[in-house]
């Protein structure tokens, strides 16, 4: 869920850029560390970015009839970690604004924080909590992706509420209204995205489980067990 160009007043646009820059700097530091250790990682990270871009430009089957796109950041955070996801996501968000006119340049900082930092971190945290429990891998992926999407929508609502506080009740009241309005599209979208990405995971487990073993997404025996369930 992107905040479109022109929606944030200048002070808030600058504020979110200032918040986003240290996160990006840390992500770039992590990226440099990964690339100095393994040069082959660059093309793989590149295709991950391409995958997120394509995934986010596909129209998701929608129950509300709205034009909805998955974020794909939950799956990326699970597979590649939240910090690298933030750098990839920043590049993808820039491409989305310049390829598809989704999002914006002044609102890029706010969108990086919601879609590239806090959403993926929340999805990754859920995955880390559930990863070593007895919860099934598909349910873990569903929860991580749906939570990443929901948290992105909550943070976006908060960013808008901070910029446009209500006359009565201030930021809290405005936050409730933005949450309520966007819930119409975003809650079904998060559930459908969770289901779709869990099915995507099942497809990969069935056809190419070695990718997930190499990325150490789950212990090998858990992936083998899931592959057995899928067949």
């Amino acid at each position: 869920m992107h905040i479109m160009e022109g929606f944030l007043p200048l002070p808030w646009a600058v504020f979110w850029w200032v918040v986003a820059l240290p996160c990006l700097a840390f992500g770039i530091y992590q990226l440099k560390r990964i690339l100095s250790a393994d040069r082959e990682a660059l093309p793989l990270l590149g295709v991950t970015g391409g995958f997120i871009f394509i995934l986010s430009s596909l129209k998701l089957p929608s129950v509300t009839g709205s034009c909805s796109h998955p974020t794909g950041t939950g799956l990326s955070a699970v597979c590649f970690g939240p910090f690298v996801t933030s750098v990839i996501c920043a590049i993808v968000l820039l491409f989305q604004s310049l390829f598809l006119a989704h999002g914006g340049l002044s609102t890029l900082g706010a969108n990086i924080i919601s879609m590239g930092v806090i959403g993926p971190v929340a999805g990754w945290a859920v995955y880390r909590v559930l990863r070593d429990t007895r919860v099934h891998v598909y349910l873990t992926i569903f929860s991580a992706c749906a939570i990443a999407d929901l948290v992105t929508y909550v943070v976006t609502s908060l960013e808008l509420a901070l910029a446009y506080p209500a006359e009565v009740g201030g930021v809290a009241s405005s936050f409730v209204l933005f949450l309520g309005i966007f819930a119409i599209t975003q809650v079904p979208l998060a559930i459908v995205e969770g289901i779709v990405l869990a099915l995507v995971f099942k497809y990969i487990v069935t056809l190419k489980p070695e990718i997930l073993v190499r990325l150490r997404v789950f212990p090998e025996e858990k992936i083998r067990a899931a592959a057995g369930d899928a067949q």
Partner: protein
Amino acid sequence: MYEEILEDIAHNSALRETNTAVKLATGTGAILLCLLSPGFLAPLFVAVTLVLALVFLARVDIHTLLHVYTAPALFALFSILAIVLVSGGGECFWRWQPFPWFALSLSRDGINQGTLVLARFAGGTTALAFIALTTPMTDLFAVMKRARIPDEVTDLAMIIYRTIFVIMAHVVQVYRAQVMRLGYSTFRESVRSFATLCGAVFIASWEAGEDLVRAMEARCYDGKFAVLGRDRPPAPLSVAAVTLFFLTTGALAVTTAEITLL
């Protein structure tokens, strides 16, 4: 569905050969002026001027341009509605307060605030579309190199850019095959087909990455990509036109600051 990428239009734009810095300055300067303007007329002027520039100078099809606004329109509709309802002040036309801490109202200041945000959205999105529809991404990589953005980020951006087109070709093939087999006929079928499509794309992406590693190693890749920037010097006429546009918008922003819709 997938062919709506604006990059192809940018490559065929009549402003393709115009200096990249001038086009970027026009778009980003216009966005900044829209945000700085306290009134709604200056952002509207930006929107109208840049639409005319896109249609008559860049020769962009008007239907394509309208299509650019459809994706953000839903977000704009919901958000502006919320901004109008929570922003009170001035004469109140309607009010509903279900809780002491929560009230919705339709007031003069709320409608004026909504109009300003709508105008900024129109101006900002048109400015963004101006960059998107006239400047191919390959021109921006040269700008990123000159702006001293870390090489790792520029290289990653270039690989993402390249991969998008490789994967997109794959997506179009799979999607068309699914549509031909009624893969999107019901909601349940759509979810299943969409998941299969995404899974196939993930695996294709991974394999494309492995192929790329092999191809780059075979060509003695040493960790740095070369960027061949081919940019024309800025034409005096285009610089003068952009300066005039900025000065007019700035003057309009100052003189119409107090004008509101109601």
